């Protein structure tokens, strides 16, 4: 690991200002960043510890929703009584991810900003446009079973690995930030993650130094919440495909899918087809998909997982 300076920030605005320095990075749970630093994939010269800013609370909003501090640990968010009751999809998605030890460390904002687990991103001897812009993509033409089938480009076919982000997308979360000049803004979850295009190293719409302070959930939407993750072992593995579903009694609902794209994949026009069943929804959701021979199975797997989840939701309701 390369040497770095370490400082503890004393306010979100100060953290954002400090992060303008070249080579600066925020560290919260550290579970992804330190892993990447050991592998020389991330090489920050300055680490700004944001663990002591008091951003670890979950508060009710005047609109009837929840404001989740950026530093709320994954375990605490999944276990919060209000989340378990009104946003079960979020609890379930969190509990499907990582291990108990990692969830105790990992934070809400850090989970959103975690990097891909594409093996070519992790291997510094391979070309990767995300890790080294312009170097090419060894994944294309390589072993792609785990990789993305939609939203990809000729420069990158990596997936976003988060389970939590799938639930946040289905729940229409808003990302609250502060920028180095002290101004704040709110970014819809749909706009946080960027598709790779020609710039796969630019993964989010955050500006340099911009710091996430909270994630806000709108008032509960009701319905039956199910998160189903299909993976190679029954625990502690990344998704091949995951489906997050909120189904209302009248048959309408929301669907977000993980494991298939560079960002949580939700297509509102596909959701509108929910009363017609899994086949209609998944066909529309996956329109324009460009799978490889290795990961073509994900198209079928999305439809079958959605069918299974819809059947389960109707049974539960």
């Amino acid at each position: 690991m390369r040497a770095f300076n370490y400082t503890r920030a004393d306010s979100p605005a100060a953290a954002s200002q400090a992060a303008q320095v070249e080579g600066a990075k925020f560290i919260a749970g550290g579970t992804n960043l330190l892993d990447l630093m050991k592998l020389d994939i991330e090489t920050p010269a300055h680490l700004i510890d944001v663990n002591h800013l008091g951003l670890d609370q979950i508060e009710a909003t005047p609109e009837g929703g929840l404001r989740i501090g950026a530093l709320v640990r994954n375990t605490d968010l999944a276990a919060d009584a209000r989340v378990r009751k009104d946003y079960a999809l979020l609890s379930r998605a969190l509990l499907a991810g990582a291990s108990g030890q990692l969830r105790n460390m990992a934070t809400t904002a850090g989970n959103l900003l975690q990097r891909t687990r594409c093996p070519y991103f992790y291997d510094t001897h391979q070309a990767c446009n995300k890790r080294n812009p312009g170097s090419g993509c060894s994944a294309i033409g390589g072993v792609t079973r785990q990789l993305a089938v939609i939203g990809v480009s000729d420069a990158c076919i990596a997936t976003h690995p988060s389970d939590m982000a799938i639930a946040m997308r289905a729940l229409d979360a808003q990302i609250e930030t502060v920028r180095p000049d002290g101004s704040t803004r709110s970014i819809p979850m749909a706009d946080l993650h960027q598709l790779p295009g020609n710039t796969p190293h630019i993964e989010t719409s955050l500006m340099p130094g911009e710091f996430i302070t909270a994630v806000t959930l709108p008032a509960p939407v009701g319905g039956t919440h199910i998160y189903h993750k299909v993976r190679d072992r029954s625990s502690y593995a990344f998704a091949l495909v995951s489906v997050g579903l909120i189904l209302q009694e009248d048959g309408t609902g929301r669907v977000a899918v993980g494991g298939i794209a560079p960002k949580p994949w939700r297509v509102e026009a596909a959701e509108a087809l929910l009363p017609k069943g899994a086949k209609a929804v998944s066909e529309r959701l996956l329109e324009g998909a460009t799978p490889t021979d290795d990961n073509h199975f994900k198209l079928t797997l999305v439809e079958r997982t959605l069918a299974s989840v819809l059947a389960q939701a109707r049974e539960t309701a």
Partner: protein
Amino acid sequence: MTISRRNFLILGAVTATAFAMPPFISLKAYAASLEQPAMSKITLQVNGKPRELEVDTRTTLLDALRENLHLTGTKKGCDHGQCGACTVIADGRRINSCLTLAVMHDGSEVTTIEGLGMPDKLHPMQAAFIKHDGYQCGYCTPGQICSAVAVLKEIRDGIPSHVSPSLTEPPQLIAAELQERMSGNICRCGAYSNIIEAITEVAEVPA
């Protein structure tokens, strides 16, 4: 142009190590991260005792425990958060000590396997692992035991898991819950079934 000591060191180091540079790391990123090691003084409460130490900021909590404090019960397996051998309890929660920096824990309370119990006074979980033969080579065992002690507290605290049938009912003390919650601790000898028996025995004794 005046060359500051820091810039000089960066330039000097880049020149000296140019041939050793890993491929696909941009020169800019490489140069930005180069500096003399930064040192930091911290205090950890380890197994109930305050321990002051001066560490390179790069030192993980795991390395601080093993190399600086010579508490070698905590093991380094994968060093990437995949195996759980380094599990310790920090401020009441089990964590992977390999994926956190010692400087981030300045002021924290850390419990390692040595703090749970020693040969002359075993923790009930240690005794149960021995009774049920919950290991073969023993390398993952300190992590398994720290994890298991924390798992029982998590269940008592009502924290749900992936296999809990209901999010609103308290989780049950059953094998399926223990298996899911212990999935971050890998045992390559495959002592899993005996580990679950050991944890189950401890769980059945009221805390």
